[in-house]
């Protein structure tokens, strides 16, 4: 039974203009299999997912489900064919109840008790069907989203980065659910950047690069390095040792008694410029709130924050900005980038005064800033007038991070999940940009839920759990196990 093919694609090609998003891609999915799709942002895996779920139509090639040739016309038709997509972006309606969301757009009747069972199997026993979806934590909303796909009785379930915003216990629940589905004979396509997850969860992996299928392998025959090599075509170099930055004029921030109701009762931290500090914690640990408060985006935050001895008044984004604080949000689409504006417009959006004289934008000043940032990010010059919305996630994120760096008046740079949903290569580029900013003497504080990222980028690791600071250690004295323990459990005294 395991060898029976559920889905088979042959020679799928999709071009946008002269760009091959997918070139002659062939792929198959067995009954009862969890199959990983891996690759860079822009390597072609999302295009395949969109084709299978009816969002995009291929230029050439065939799709067979259970041996029968099909062409999903739209997401609804794909649903009828037994394909369900759980997108990485939440598509739940916050003001509807959990039950209403589960039933939204459903093509067949499901009893409330079946929905109840479904939630229970995902570890959502404590969530009532009548709860407003928007009142649930993001991680639980993600599980509801998965429950919705499952309620459609799909044969093929596509999970696109399902764990990106989840905490460890939530991830375990998703894994358990996925394994149970596979055991029931469903087929799961699992798109993820987290190689560790792929190695634990999937049976086979198909790797994409530059719109082509590099190969499909049994996960049992693969290790981390092997997958990365297939994705990149070469092995990346991991950072070793601790580099010491000695900027000329290091900035300094002192945070005392920062309170951000309701999540963070109190937070203290001192950071010297040139040092990169990670706030490591799961979703909901309070790190995001700390960064947002420093950026002036939380109106009711209080506390003593001093930049180089000068008091920062909290609660005004304009004042924080003027004081030299720059913040890069985790949600690049909702509150980070101006999607219908060009790369150029986005890059200078945070430094309009610097590229203006007498109230008017000066092309020459703008050009100088943009040229430098484009060369730092490695984004091709010809693309500068493209809308940011059409770029891949990785390049969007580069633009977002680049907006904050290389500003003469900057003192503190805050990055919330700086490499969210970005592939290995893009992440390395982004980390390089952030290190460059630290070298210039800026205080750099970032929040990440991802251990790899924390250990790759940080000099000092601050762990957070449930709104409190757990531990402060240099990277040299930290071990992944210790950090992960802090992030997932806190310390006895704190979790009590």
């Amino acid at each position, binding site marked *: 039974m395991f060898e029976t093919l559920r889905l088979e694609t042959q020679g799928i090609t999709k071009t*946008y203009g002269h760009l091959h998003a997918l070139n002659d891609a062939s792929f198959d999915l067995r009954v009862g299999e969890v199959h990983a799709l891996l690759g860079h*942002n*822009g390597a072609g895996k999302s295009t395949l997912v969109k084709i299978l779920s009816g969002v995009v139509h291929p230029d050439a090639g065939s799709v067979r489900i259970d041996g029968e040739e099909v062409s999903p016309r739209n997401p609804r038709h794909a649903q009828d064919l037994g394909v369900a997509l759980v997108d990485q972006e939440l598509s739940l309606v916050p003001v509807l109840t959990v039950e209403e969301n589960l039933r939204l757009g459903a093509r067949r009747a499901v009893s409330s008790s079946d929905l109840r069972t479904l939630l229970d199997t995902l570890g959502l026993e404590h969530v009532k069907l009548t709860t407003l979806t928007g009142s649930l934590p993001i991680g639980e909303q993600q599980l509801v989203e998965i429950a919705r796909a499952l309620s459609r009785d799909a044969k093929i379930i596509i999970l696109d980065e399902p764990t990106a915003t989840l905490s460890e216990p939530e991830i375990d629940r998703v894994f358990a659910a996925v394994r149970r589905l596979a055991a029931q004979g469903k087929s799961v396509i699992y798109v993820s950047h987290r190689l560790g997850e792929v190695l634990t969860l999937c049976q086979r992996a198909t790797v994409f690069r530059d719109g082509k299928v590099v190969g499909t392998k049994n996960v049992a025959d693969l290790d981390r390095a092997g997958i990365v090599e297939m994705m990149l075509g070469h092995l990346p170099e991991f950072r070793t040792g601790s580099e010491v930055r000695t900027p000329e004029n290091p900035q300094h921030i002192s945070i005392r008694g920062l309170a951000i109701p309701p999540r963070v009762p109190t937070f203290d931290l001192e950071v010297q410029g040139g040092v990169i500090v990670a706030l490591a914690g799961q979703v909901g640990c309070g790190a995001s709130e700390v960064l947002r408060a420093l950026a002036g985006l939380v109106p009711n935050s209080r506390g003593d924050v001093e930049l180089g001895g000068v008091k920062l008044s909290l609660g005004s984004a304009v004042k924080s900005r003027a004081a030299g604080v720059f913040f890069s949000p985790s949600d690049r689409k909702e509150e980070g980038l101006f999607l219908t*504006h060009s790369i150029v417009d986005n890059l200078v959006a945070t430094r309009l005064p610097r590229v203006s004289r007498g109230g*008017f934008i000066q092309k020459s000043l703008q050009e100088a800033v943009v040229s430098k940032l484009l060369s730092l990010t490695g984004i091709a010059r010809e693309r500068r007038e493209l809308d940011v919305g*059409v770029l891949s996630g990785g390049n969007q994120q580069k633009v977002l991070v680049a907006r904050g760096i290389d500003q003469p008046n900057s003192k503190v740079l805050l990055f919330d999940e700086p490499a969210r949903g970005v592939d290995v290569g893009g992440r390395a580029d982004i980390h390089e940009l952030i290190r460059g900013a630290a070298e210039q003497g800026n205080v750099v504080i970032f929040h990440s839920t991802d251990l790899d990222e924390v250990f790759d980028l940080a000099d000092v690791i601050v762990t957070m759990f449930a709104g409190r600071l757990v531990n402060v250690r240099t990277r040299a004295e930290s071990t992944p196990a210790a950090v992960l323990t802090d992030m997932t459990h806190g310390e006895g005294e704190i979790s009590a």
Partner: protein
Amino acid sequence: MSTVNDVTPSRFSIGGMSTGQKITILVTILFLAILIFATVTTTGFYSVQNFKAIINAAALVGIIAVGMTYIVISGNLFSLSVGTTAAVCALTFMWALRFGLVGGIIITIVFGAVVIGLQGLLVGFTGANPIIVTIAAGALQEAVAIWISGGVSVYPPDNGPSFAFLASPLFGIPFPVYVFVAAVILGEIFIKKSRFGRGLYLMGESPRAGRTAGLPITRLTTGAFVVAGVCAAIAGILIGAFNQSGTMTASGTLTVDSISAVLVGGTAVIGGRGSVVRTAIGAIVIASISDLLLLRGYSTPVQLLVLGVIVTAVVILSYLNSERAGRS
């Protein structure tokens, strides 16, 4: 870095044109077709005299619509009281002429900028809904104006300065037309080239992204409304000069007409895109169609009906365009 899969289709790149550009082109084609049809079938349409009448009719609405464009691009929907403010400004101008012509003009413009700017301040600072704020402000202005003026027309002081040139032709073209052209050129350059204008476009697309990028949201919103106030005041001065008096009934359909001009021009209702020049085209198209209907003997209700149909069509068109893209 691989970039092969980087460009995905979206509403912003279909056929290399934005929704707004497509609407502008469609409107222009429709407009040319109407012009040809009108020239062939309607006596009196194809004449210098009539074109002057059209452009003159477009001028007053057009000047107000220039300011409205700033509000729409800033992402704050519309002001529903600019027409009222224009009428109040006509009153103010008649009264303020006692301080001389220049004094009267300056006082009126400052007055208009403050009245509408305060609404912008309220919207920007509290995040209040601009539609509600401007409806309320419109009612307030009307009430206060009628209360102070006693509900009758305001006439200029007997020994006041002459302002006749504001309403008379210069080189055969009515003075308001020059003001309209100047407002469009200055308005377009300012919104496209200035730091303030750039901020408006960015904030209009996403106020949340604007806030995190450190854009001064309150100041930008207030600024957009101030521009609208200046434009409404200038229109008010010209209206007062033309009528040689100020009366609240002068507001008429100015607000609705100026919103129509912005929409027909193809500026996105949701903000962040559009241009002043497009609005000018919209104003001229609407004036031409009204003129044509008038020449063919259709009554005011029919003219309103046609205007309504055009605006609705434009709204549906832009909705369809953004809907189709929303999925990808």
